[in-house]
């Protein structure tokens, strides 16, 4: 574990230095990353230009959902997003190189081409989150206040687990990267909107099957003083750290099984 973190830090630092060689280029990509990842929030703004509520939720509430999931997703994307490139390494055989190096493969894959520009998405998510907190009319209690940062961090862990499991899946399904997008990008889009918008089966799916609902829906609805989705009890809002920790286990096992099943292309 310590080995992995050290390797990750070293490789990431190397990529950051390499990016910083072209400072102007980096500043431009960071700024444009900030603006363009916000375009899906512009869509929500445009929607609220026409309606006063979406699925019974006000603008501030939807912005809160958007801000929490986007920040979580941004964190996971910054730290682990590069694992989605694993399929390509499997196809062209360059994964072999990583296997012989004396550092955990996951750390190497995750830190490969570490993209600091992804801070843009996190910043954008945080800006919306802070704005929504200013607009929200919530009776804040201590548990609710604590739940907000906890939600953002555990959400990042949940998205990260899905990304790692998805990368492992690519070792078998070499060019199946897009399936993972349905859960990562798709999950992020889904969680930006209130659960009342979606069909019951879809909501139950992200609560009980792929527990992405714990990224923000379950804790956020508690903060907003609304009933938890899919018939969960109210105290389930505090379960998200447990769910996130529990999801890490199958993700890690899946990753190990994937690495063992790896067959090099031999070219």
């Amino acid at each position, binding site marked *: 574990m310590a080995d992995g973190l050290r390797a990750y830090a070293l490789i990431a630092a190397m990529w950051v230095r390499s990016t910083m060689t072209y400072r102007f280029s980096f500043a431009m990509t960071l700024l444009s990353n900030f603006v363009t990842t916000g375009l899906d929030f512009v869509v929500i703004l445009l929607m609220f230009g026409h309606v006063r509520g979406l699925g019974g939720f006000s603008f501030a509430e939807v912005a809160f959902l958007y801000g929490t999931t986007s920040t979580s997703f941004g964190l996971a994307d910054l730290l682990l997003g590069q694992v989605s490139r694993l399929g390509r390494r499997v196809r062209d055989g360059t994964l072999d190189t990583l296997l012989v190096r004396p550092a955990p493969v996951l750390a190497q894959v995750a830190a490969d081409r570490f993209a600091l520009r992804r801070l843009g998405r996190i910043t954008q998510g945080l800006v919306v989150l802070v704005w929504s907190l200013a607009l929200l009319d919530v009776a804040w209690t201590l548990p609710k206040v604590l739940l907000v940062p906890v939600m953002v961090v555990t959400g990042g862990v949940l998205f990260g687990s899905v990304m790692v499991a998805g990368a492992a899946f690519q070792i078998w399904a070499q060019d199946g*990267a897009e399936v993972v997008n349905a859960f990562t990008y798709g999950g992020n889009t889904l969680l930006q909107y209130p659960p009342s918008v979606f069909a019951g089966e879809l909501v139950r799916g992200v609560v009980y099957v792929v527990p992405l609902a714990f990224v923000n829906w379950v804790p956020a609805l508690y903060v907003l003083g609304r009933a938890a989705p899919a018939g969960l009890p109210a105290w389930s809002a505090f379960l998200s750290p447990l769910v996130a920790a529990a999801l890490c286990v199958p993700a890690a096992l899946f990753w190990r099984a994937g690495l063992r099943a790896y067959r090099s292309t031999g070219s």
Partner: protein
Amino acid sequence: MWLYAAVAAGGFRRHATYRMATVAGMFTNTVFGFILAYTYVALWDERPHLGGYDMSEALTYVWIGQALLATTGLMGSSFEEELIERIKTGDIAVDLYRPADLQLWWLAAVYGRAAFQLLARGVVPMAVGSLAFELALPRNPLTWAAFLLSVALGVLVNFAIGYLVALSAFWLLDGAGVVQVAWLSGLFFSGMLLPLTVFPGTLGEVARALPWSSALQVPADVFLERRTGARLAEAYAFQAGWALVLLAGGRVLQAVATRRVVVQGG
């Protein structure tokens, strides 16, 4: 001419080889289709006839969008990344030596891919969508042909944009940031996230006049029979006009780039 036909056929066959990727893509398009469809239902429930569409037309719009996402290459068209990779590694020097036009070569490959993606990733999600929701299919059978022509022009415009984006790698060397910006603005301004007819005031007018609208908003309106007769001819002229301007821009940029090119690699 035969050369480019062969390249196009190769592009079709190449993408047909990756069965897993195709199935994965169908799955992802279907999932996104459902997510967007539900948000549209919530929106059109509150405001029926928003943007001039009724509920079933709005839902049809969602599924056309999913069908065209891979076809027009709005979402991560692999050709840009490949071309950027060739520029970065210096392989582009070999391409420039070939007795074929660089732009036409890639265009042919993109058309081959688009034909495959429309058949594979266009038809299946649309069929799933029509089972789950009530969609508004064209009443006039000729509309299908008109729609295909508009899609073909949309592919052309989006290729021309992608070509410009990829050539920027001659100067920037790291194309990842530019590609992501082009990709996300393409999604927004094509109307993939929300129909451009719903955009308010000046933003709407500007968005509808930008080239990206050729990739989804215009073909979708043709499909929904919002553009017939003179309005249809106008739509084609709009798409073809942007295609010409952007393709010409690509040629100019290519000429400038090749004159100053210092081949990477070694």
